[in-house]
């Protein structure tokens, strides 16, 4: 799960990790009063959306006084912000963070993430702040310093010091960086985060270390033990069809093609998209109906696929293991009888009770294109949209 920058900073503040003073506003008037509260000098007005690259897209502006903050907030709230992470359609901005301006001395980077190769969390820092860390990793990996965290003892102060010295910090800066790093680790660890990234981490001209930006993602599988973090979920940031799918325990991701897909199992669902593309078509979505593809989930899946106006044919690919194909077939028949589906539906059912399933489909009064295997299914569904 992703959250907004202002929410991430709220969490950091709770753990005494230094961030600039600031508050979120959803109207220009509020933006002005927050700027006044902050002392009336320079503030930053930052668009709050779940995507990076906001500055380049025109979503982050400096205001010299509260009136200007109001004016800029007026421009940014409601704007459609396009960044390299939003896609060309962009995202609507509903809130802005109004934050105290900071005298930046140095821009650094700090981040925590799972290192899958060793099965431990890696704490990474770099002198190259303010740019994409992936770019640094690709071009000058020696500029990224790492400490791996032993889960038995946690992140140790000596590791935090080692990172601080590695960044070339001196005197009180080291103390303030160590405090910052230890706090950031606690946030990551105690909230079951999957990513905590401070970019840039700044050293002010006064020598303070603080988080100018903050991005925290959470492990969806651990949200059950963090009711407070669940409340940070902003449904307006998620595609409505994906939110709808998640209510039925379905995993749906919209893509740009015209062949709708309904598959059981994530790997097989990806492989089905791949073979559609390989056959010359374009998949409209990823949809995993899970291990227990019942009549109800199949129906919900159809409804979600049908909301995508680009879809011109649907391919159902089920490999029945524990789930029986005849039950899935009945689900498909029930769903199609209830819904108004006016496009070709290609069905490939294999595995447990596949023959009984084929009979059910053939005996029904509905029109199906029955495919005998995966290759045939891809060919028939691509032909259907040609």
């Amino acid at each position, binding site marked *: 799960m992703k959250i907004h920058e202002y929410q991430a900073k709220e969490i950091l503040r709770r753990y005494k990790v230094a961030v600039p003073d600031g508050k979120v506003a959803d109207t220009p008037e509020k933006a002005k009063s927050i700027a006044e509260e902050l002392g009336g000098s320079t503030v930053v007005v930052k668009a709050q959306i779940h995507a990076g690259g906001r500055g380049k897209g025109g979503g982050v502006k400096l205001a010299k006084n509260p009136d200007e903050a109001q004016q800029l907030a007026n421009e940014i709230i409601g704007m459609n912000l396009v960044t390299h*992470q939003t896609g060309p359609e962009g995202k609507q901005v509903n809130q802005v963070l109004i934050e105290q301006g900071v005298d930046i001395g140095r821009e650094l980077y700090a981040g925590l993430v799972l290192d*899958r190769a060793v*099965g431990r969390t890696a704490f990474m820092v770099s002198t190259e702040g303010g740019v994409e860390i992936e770019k640094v990793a690709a071009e000058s990996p020696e500029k990224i310093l790492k400490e791996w965290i032993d889960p038995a003892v946690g992140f140790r102060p000596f590791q935090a010091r080692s990172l601080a010295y590695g960044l070339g910090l001196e005197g009180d800066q080291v103390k303030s960086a160590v405090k910052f790093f230890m706090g950031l680790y606690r946030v990551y660890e105690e909230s079951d985060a999957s990513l905590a990234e401070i970019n840039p981490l700044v050293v002010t001209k006064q020598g303070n270390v603080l988080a100018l930006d903050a991005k925290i993602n959470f492990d969806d599988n651990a949200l059950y*033990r963090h009711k407070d973090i669940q409340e940070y979920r902003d449904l307006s940031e998620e595609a409505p069809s994906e939110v709808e799918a998640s209510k039925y325990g379905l995993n749906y991701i919209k893509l740009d093609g015209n062949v709708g897909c309904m598959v059981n199992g994530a790997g*097989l669902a*990806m492989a089905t998209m*791949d073979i559609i593309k390989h056959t010359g078509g374009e998949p409209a979505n*990823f949809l995993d109906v899970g291990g227990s593809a019942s009549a109800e989930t199949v129906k919900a899946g159809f409804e979600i696929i049908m909301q995508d106006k680009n879809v011109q044919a649907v391919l159902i690919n089920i490999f029945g293991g524990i789930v029986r194909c005849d039950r899935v077939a009945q689900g498909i028949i029930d769903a199609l009888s209830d819904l108004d589906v006016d496009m070709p539906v290609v069905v490939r059912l294999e595995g447990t009770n596949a023959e009984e399933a084929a009979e059910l489909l053939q005996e029904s009064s509905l029109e199906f294109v029955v495919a005998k*295997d995966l290759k045939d299914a891809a060919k028939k569904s691509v032909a259907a949209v040609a």
Partner: protein
Amino acid sequence: MSILVNKETRLIVQGLTGSEGSFHAQQMVEYGTQVVAGVTPGKGGQTHNDLPVYNTIKEARDAHDANTSVIFVPPAFAADAIMEAADAELDLVVCITEGIPVKDMIQVRRYLADKPTRLVGPNCPGVISPGQAKVGIMPAFIHEPGKVGIISRSGTLTYEAVHQLTNHGFGQSTAIGIGGDPIIGSTFIDLLTLFKDDDGTDAVVLIGEIGGSAEEEAAKWVTKNNFDKPIVAFIAGQTAPPGRRMGHAGAIISGGQGTAADKMKALRAAGISVCDTPATIGETMAEALK
């Protein structure tokens, strides 16, 4: 022969009395697996579907000389269940449970480091050595005893591959679903190492997917260790968009890392036959074994 599970496997089902555990234990018994006991804390002393239930793994192990367990407990308790099985020093633990938090798995991995127990999974369909033992939830009837080993990050896609192999006349020595999570107990390399020394395995199918670098590491290992049995591979997710988790927690392209194209390239460089589509796994194996 085979790896991991066979006729000597003596299995404990952790979470036997739950609906999943109940159903699949029955299926495993019907397949001929030696299921010897179940463990559900608080239900020790009961009998469930003719199987004795114990409160702890150690009790069940001691009473039945068990060497393997399979886990069906809910995600919040699964990490603890794995550690209990490792504490009892079973040879193998297969964790079917999906949705275990990463933080819990980091601890599990640390805990297992100095234990003799091997973990397969979590979030996987399990392990089957056709004709000998089934420890998991895969549909048994698509399998045939034979000499092709399978290692896969996916569930239903594994069934697809097995089905094609069987249809092409290739039975399987052992098929292992290693799981779709970012932290798993057994990797491609761990199992290739076992298949290398298994006389009953003549060739291997690797099924990977986007995310992480396990396939690239396997490719390097194959080259370095002169693995001389033919390998056929497929990588799911060639069309997956970056930054989106494709169902499995581990299946995500991030920061330009973990793409299908990179993985296919690395595997081909190691002399592995990589299929462009999942529909050609069977015929590619036929070609490789000519």
